């Protein structure tokens, strides 16, 4: 499983300032690996997309691509408000 995370939006609206991370959970320590796999499971992400969504002024949007071998990539677009704070902390920590 590969997790690709890209942002757009924000106060500056500057594409070049956007975040982009590509994470291979297999390369992380066990605890972090487990947390990543749980947080970024496609089912969990799909559930988040059902949550309250609004484009808050200057808010970031996250485009999360989950790449699993033998399967088509799954792409989810989430506003910052739709993502649990623990998940955002996880992203910040990697």
């Amino acid at each position, binding site marked *: 499983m590969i997790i690709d995370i890209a942002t757009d939006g924000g106060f500056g609206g500057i*594409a070049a300032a956007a975040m982009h991370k590509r994470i291979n959970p297999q390369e992380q320590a066990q605890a972090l690996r487990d947390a990543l796999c749980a947080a970024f499971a496609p089912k969990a992400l799909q559930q988040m997309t059902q949550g309250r969504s609004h484009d808050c002024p*200057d*808010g970031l949007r996250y485009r999360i691509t989950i790449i699993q071998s033998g399967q088509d990539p799954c792409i989810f677009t989430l506003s910052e408000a739709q993502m649990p704070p623990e998940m955002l902390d996880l992203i910040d920590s990697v």
Partner: protein
Amino acid sequence: MCLSLSCSHHNPIACIVPPYMLRVLALRGDPATAEMARTLLRHDEEIRAERASHASPPPPLSEGFAGLLPLPAVDPDLCCADRRIHDGQFRAALPGNLVRSEGDSPCGIPDADLAYDSAGQVFSLFAEEYGRNSLDGRGMPLVATVQHRRNYNNAFWNGEQMAYGTGDGKIFRTFLELSVIGHEMAHGVIQHSGGLIYENQSGALNESIADVFGALSQQRALRQEVHQADWLVGRGILGPGINGVALRSMKAPGTAYSDDLLGRDPQPWHMDHFVTTTDDNGGVHINSGIPNHAFYLFCNYLGGRSWELPGQIWYRALQDLNNPMASFSDWADQTLRTASALTGQGSLEGQMLRRAWKLVGINV
């Protein structure tokens, strides 16, 4: 196809509601209505195919379609700010740990104390110049979180509070600058003044009006007249290695930065260079340069203090607009109507305003 709404047995909206109207309802409706609208918008893709087979141009908003949220009158209890500053402790949970409430002594966390003082200055602008009691006109607490998340290159208004990252030290070094703070708080004022849908031209207006009141907050705090101000939004917030002075310039859109990492400031100053894009909600931070520049030009024609007559016109126009989907032309029209109401039909100020709009390519 009619959509039944499970939240109500009797709901006046029983047939297909166009997305633009759902967005207005999501923006202005009571909590139940807003949630209904958001649910329907999420399902929009699923029903679009079937809707397309019954497609017809969306009806114009009738005069009977008034905003669901009445605009507040001046609050007779207008007095003082109710500031509540929190330390996010570099985590994402909001609002975080309350470190300074209204009337408290400085807490010793520089970001929190700066946010406290600046929020007070923005409150004072709206209260003393425009008679507005806080962001909602009803004295709502000013909730802010500083040190939000780790190395967070952003600041935002989430509908209920402001949040400020510290930046990563490379691209941004801070977001606690008065024009930025005024900008975020002004988003709250806009939300509680009828709203402007955050995409395309209405979104760019949302951004521009926030920049205007951010700039006015700064100029008023520094007691700067029009020609003394630098008209920059976010001066000094860029990282030390970034080639730029600010995030945006109202005086010279497109010149705030030019950097190998960030690229060049993409803001246009004229409709001829309007940027059509799907990025950034349709370029809301880009095309805001056009109405920003119109405001700057108007202020320069008049001279004096930008937060006085120009600020009054912009503030009152926002209160009177009642059009969350307003285009630049709609907004320009509204500012002219407001200017006429304040200064008289055919006034010199009105003529200068019309000229400012014309110079950015908007003929009204």
